[in-house]
């Protein structure tokens, strides 16, 4: 089995609510952790039976190799995440991954911008951590519907300035994350990394345009999570330059921003 393909049982060691319908889950491996990158996702079974067959993709939020722990933060949004939320400390979980292509780190970057919207915020934590370790200055812009849904601001603040936007203005500035993408800020940014709902990513792509290079992490419904089924495709520029469907689970979820094609 190569480095990036791992299947394991993990024990739940922490599991608690961090905001309205948002849970923070820490799981621990018996053996060593498989290799991981910020932006990769864990593919989690929510039952052992055949009731909910498909795994749920949840981004890695942080990891600790020493403690053999992965942490994810997820929203209870449907039947599967509801079942997941019932798991108690001591229960075990069947997890694939971390899977997919994570956020590439570039030597020489000095200032980077992280953009997270809603449940796109979690992957920014491990990313901010790794960038900081490499001596990169990190600024994070996060957006939420409303204050009660805000997550991980404290975690992110450890690694640099955090700017907040909420749709209703109940926390930080009212509006979207893109309002912080001023000409000035983009000019001093070496690279950006974004994760969030499609409309946000499309807006980020538009706002950055020629002004900054960066990455977008996409979300699509998945069948397998490992490149077998072609369920998770998103329109993107193909290696040959044409526009086609690329697999988010295997070729992504992280794509170079300029490669991604959004239907308008």
């Amino acid at each position: 089995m190569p480095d990036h393909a791992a299947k394991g049982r993990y024990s739940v060691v922490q599991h608690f609510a961090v905001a309205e319908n948002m849970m923070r889950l820490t799981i621990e491996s018996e053996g060593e952790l498989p290799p991981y990158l910020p932006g990769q996702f864990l593919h989690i079974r929510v039952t052992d039976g055949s009731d909910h067959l498909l795994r749920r993709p949840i981004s890695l939020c942080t990891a600790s190799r020493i403690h053999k722990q992965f942490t994810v933060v997820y929203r209870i949004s449907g039947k599967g995440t509801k079942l997941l939320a019932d798991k108690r400390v001591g229960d075990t979980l069947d997890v694939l991954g971390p899977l997919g292509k994570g956020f590439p780190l570039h030597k020489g970057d000095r200032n980077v911008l992280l953009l997270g919207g809603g449940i796109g915020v979690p992957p920014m934590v491990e990313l901010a951590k790794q960038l900081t370790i490499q001596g990169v200055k990190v600024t994070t812009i996060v957006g939420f519907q409303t204050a009660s849904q805000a997550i991980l601001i404290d975690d992110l603040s450890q690694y640099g300035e955090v700017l907040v936007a909420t749709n209703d203005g109940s926390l930080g500035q009212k509006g979207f994350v893109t309002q912080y993408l001023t000409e000035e800020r983009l000019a001093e940014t070496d690279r950006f990394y974004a994760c969030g709902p499609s409309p946000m990513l499309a807006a980020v792509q538009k706002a950055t345009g020629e002004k900054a290079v960066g990455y977008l992490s996409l979300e699509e419904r998945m069948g397998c999570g490992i490149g077998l089924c072609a369920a998770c495709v998103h329109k993107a520029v193909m290696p040959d330059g044409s526009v086609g469907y690329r697999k988010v689970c295997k070729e992504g979820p992280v794509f170079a921003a300029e490669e991604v094609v959004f239907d308008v």
Partner: protein
Amino acid sequence: MSKEVDLSVQIGDLQLKNPVMPASGCFAFGKEMAEWYDLSRLGAIMVKATTLEPRLGNPTPRVAETSGGMLNAIGLQNPGVEKVISEELPHLRQYEDLKIIVNVAGTAIDDYVETARRLSESGLADALELNISCPNVKCGGIQFGVDPTLAADLVRAVKQVTSVPLIVKLSPNVTDIVEMARAVEAAGADALSMINTLVGMHIDLEKRKPLIAIGTGGLSGPAVKPVAIRMIYQAAQAVRIPIIGMGGIMSGEDAIEYFMAGASAVAVGTANFVNPFACPEILDEIVAWCQGHGVERVRELTGAAWKEGEMPGA
């Protein structure tokens, strides 16, 4: 130590070292899974549907979860037969004794025939699986899958241009599966594979429309197993050609059930999504079951659940 179990099975002229293979569309062209385990563990591989021209496939969402199963409407996304031959199949030849079965799809007799001809001539397909049953594309071959006369015409035409065994994949969305099985057997099919997916739908209550972008999708997974077992039990006793069984196989016991119903080999689809190691684990479980039950040759199990006196083709 437990006795060795003879796992070899024969599908027409195709000799398989063991009866477990991934089902078409659930294993891409094998490259991704090769990162997880050595594909020589498999008896064969049924690769993704191949069409004459490249296909982009359907818009997303392409999958939905249902009780004990899932819906899919991938829409035959594939790079077209030329690229399949030049880029996707060659790497599979590195695996010892791994038979390559290429799933062929189309819209009319002509393109089916041309695709099949090229694959047969490529020397890279050990057998073809004629997909006359994909429910997920308009004009995607499903009309052949539900009409015995059309199906027979197609099989005859493809048979004329191919030299490798021809497996015909039947649709479960028919009134009379036995009639379909008999028609394609009479037209020259060397084996059957069954079942493809049942046509289903899931509605997104918040959006008030079908969740799958194109509306309907194909239902697979454990939910459909009883339907597949019934159809194989009926068809296997009505024809003389062997059957590759599929539909909701998640464990070695499920596979044994397929053998007893009349299948000679099994294909594993949805289970690969749940567990990447599904195929080799199912194979191990088949061996363990046989050892626990004193079965020396897995092929002895085929049709074991038929009533006394019911013999295939009799």
